[in-house]
């Protein structure tokens, strides 16, 4: 059973269709990288999958549990808020601009949701948070406020915050786009390590090199549809579609 399953997703903004009939299944341990020009709908797809945006049509489920009350093919009716919150415990999301809570220290950023949302034991959460900080190389910054960190450090805290919830999968929405190139490498290294530990990941990025080396599957999106998908060596190195070819040529 796939961890994430999206079928026949349709989404319009003010009558303009931005996603038309997208279907996507992500299996346990799989790393899926989504590439495509801006405006192609890849961010909207991620926002729909993480319940930040509502879908118009289609189904969304995690480990076989659907977010919808509506019958297939009918306009989407979401389950009650409490049900959706349970579904959210399946995944974490790392934003392009971090969205750390500025009034919390690094440790509070990591521990607040596990303690107050998941009602876990504060001591146990604290131990986990410390080991996660060590993992992203920020053991000494637990008491700092986000405002005192560099962009790269902030993004590493954001990854640790997502991991502290013990999610079954992680979404990354252009995690390096707000960072300088020399800092990008550090973030990608953390993500590669997660992939090596078999974390299920869906990554929207422009880092083609990362896609080539880490992805199990690459999806190229344009104009609200999945144009091409497959192994990185096929999609990136031998694209079959003219639009994919043009996008990759412009990028390199």
């Amino acid at each position, binding site marked *: 059973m796939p961890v994430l399953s999206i079928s026949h997703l349709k989404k319009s903004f003010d009558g303009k269709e931005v996603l038309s009939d997208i279907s996507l299944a992500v299996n346990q341990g799989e790393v899926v990288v989504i590439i495509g020009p801006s405006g192609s709908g890849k961010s909207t797809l991620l926002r729909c999958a993480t319940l*930040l945006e509502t879908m118009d049509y289609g189904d969304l489920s995690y480990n076989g549990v659907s977010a919808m009350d509506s019958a297939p093919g009918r306009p989407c009716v979401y389950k009650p*808020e409490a049900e959706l919150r349970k579904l*959210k415990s399946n995944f974490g999301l790392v*934003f392009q601009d971090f969205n750390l809570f500025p*009034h919390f220290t690094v440790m509070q950023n990591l521990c*607040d949701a596990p303690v*107050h*949302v998941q009602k876990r034991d504060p001591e146990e959460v604290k131990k986990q948070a410390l080991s996660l900080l060590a993992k992203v190389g920020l053991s000494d910054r637990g008491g700092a406020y986000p405002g005192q960190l560099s962009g790269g450090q902030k993004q590493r805290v954001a990854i640790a915050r997502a991991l502290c919830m013990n999610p079954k999968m992680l979404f990354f929405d252009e995690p390096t786009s707000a960072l300088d190139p020399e800092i990008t490498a550090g973030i990608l290294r953390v993500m590669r390590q997660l992939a090596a530990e078999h974390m299920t990941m869906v990554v929207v990025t422009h880092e083609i090199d990362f896609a080539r080396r880490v992805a199990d599957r690459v999806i190229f999106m344009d104009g609200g549809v999945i144009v091409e998908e497959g192994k990185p060596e096929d999609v990136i190195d031998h694209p079959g579609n003219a639009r994919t070819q043009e996008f990759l040529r412009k990028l390199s």
Partner: protein
Amino acid sequence: MRAKYGKWTVPLVLLFAAAAVMAPAVRTEASGSAGNDDNTLIVGFDAEFPPYGYKDENGEYVGFDLSLAQEVADRNGWTLIKQPIDWNSKDMELNSGSIDCIWNGFTMDGRENEYTWSSAYVDNSQVVAVKRDSKIQSLDDLKGKTVIVQQDSSALAAFTGEDATDENKALAASFAALQQVSDYNSAFMNLESGVADAVCLDIGVANYQLAGSGGKFRLLPEQVSSEHYGIGFKKGNTALRDKVQATLNEMLSDGTFARIADEWGLSDAVCLGQEGADAVMREETEGGGSGFGAADFLDVMRQLLAGFGATLMIFFLTLLFSLPLGLLVTFMRMSRHAVPHWIARFFISILRGTPLMLQLLVVFFGPYYVFRISLSNSWRFWAVIIGFSVNYAAYFAEIFRAGIEGVPRGQREAAQVLGYTKHQTFTRIIFPQMVRRVMPPVTNEVITLVKDTSLAFALAYTEMFTLAKQIAATRSNILPLFAAGLFYYIFNFLVEFAMGRIEKKLSYFE
């Protein structure tokens, strides 16, 4: 031609009261030259003192004194300028030359040495008005009652002035409260609504008010004191006084004075030309202006300090109630449901769009005029607190809304993905950041509130500024007002300091 009390006049009275208090602030500055060099006679008067000087139904300033002044000006070829003044500021107006004289049922007794006087022209006495069905039958019955007088009026002087008789002082001491109001409309609204039990005032004014009240009130048979009215000129301005006096004498001998007195129903009260009427004018002593030493200053500060307690009380209670109320209004305003949303918008719109002073008057008198609930004297204080709290809540609500909307959208989204409930998102994530963001505009409002507390005078609640105006009036000196200004400044300096500290503390994460 006479104003009558009735249900339909209440909104107008409230509006008018608010407008009249503000009137002095917007008037054009009159010529600084005292003594009508430029062929004008600027007469200062209290525009709410019928029948001597007031605004009639056509919006004209009329009255016995203004008719006399018009005749005097006409006979001398002067242009008469009728200048309504704030009674508490009469000495500043006169001394600065922005008016030439005070001609407005102006009591000479007790003020003999403070002005250059004309001859007395009205013999006035202080009487007590009560509700028709009141149990009060004599002055002795006033024991334990709330009695109203106008600020700096002859009635007030008769009870508490330096020349008050021991009898009157003892009588005043037996009252539950001797309450001061700024005008007689307000005094009779207080009396009618039950906030006060009696009004003590000049007999001419009393007869006028009773005639227009449709039998709601009656006068006690005993008088509190008797006194005389004269025209007050700036001390030493005998040149103008003599011209005016000569013309008045002329009007007396040709019968014009008696005719005008008759027109205003004051034939029984006038005393111009009677024996002894010109005694004060002839015996005018030199000097006598009020000096102001260091001891006086300390005394004034001590008195102001007493009023400052009331100011602090208004300030803290208003903050205590308006901050949470403002947050509640913000929630309603930001609600997705139409009913609370539009209630909040209407609330904010009305409270920001009308004068605070008017809102205070509505809160104070509303329960009586709308629901016929008899008001108690302590209601005065709570009306001030409610009026201020509700008004400030409207402003705070909009500040809070801006603060909440200013928190980046990503904060809410991050919380949403982490599974926070709406309530947790607000209390744990949005609210702490909102508080930090609203500190500068909230500080602004708090500082404004310190100064706005002075508006409590509209309900005759004696906070510091009301007290300062009263002291300034009795001492004929504006220093108490500056002293009050000093209090406000020092208090605001501390407020600014405290808010700065809080702001710094709240920016721990920046």
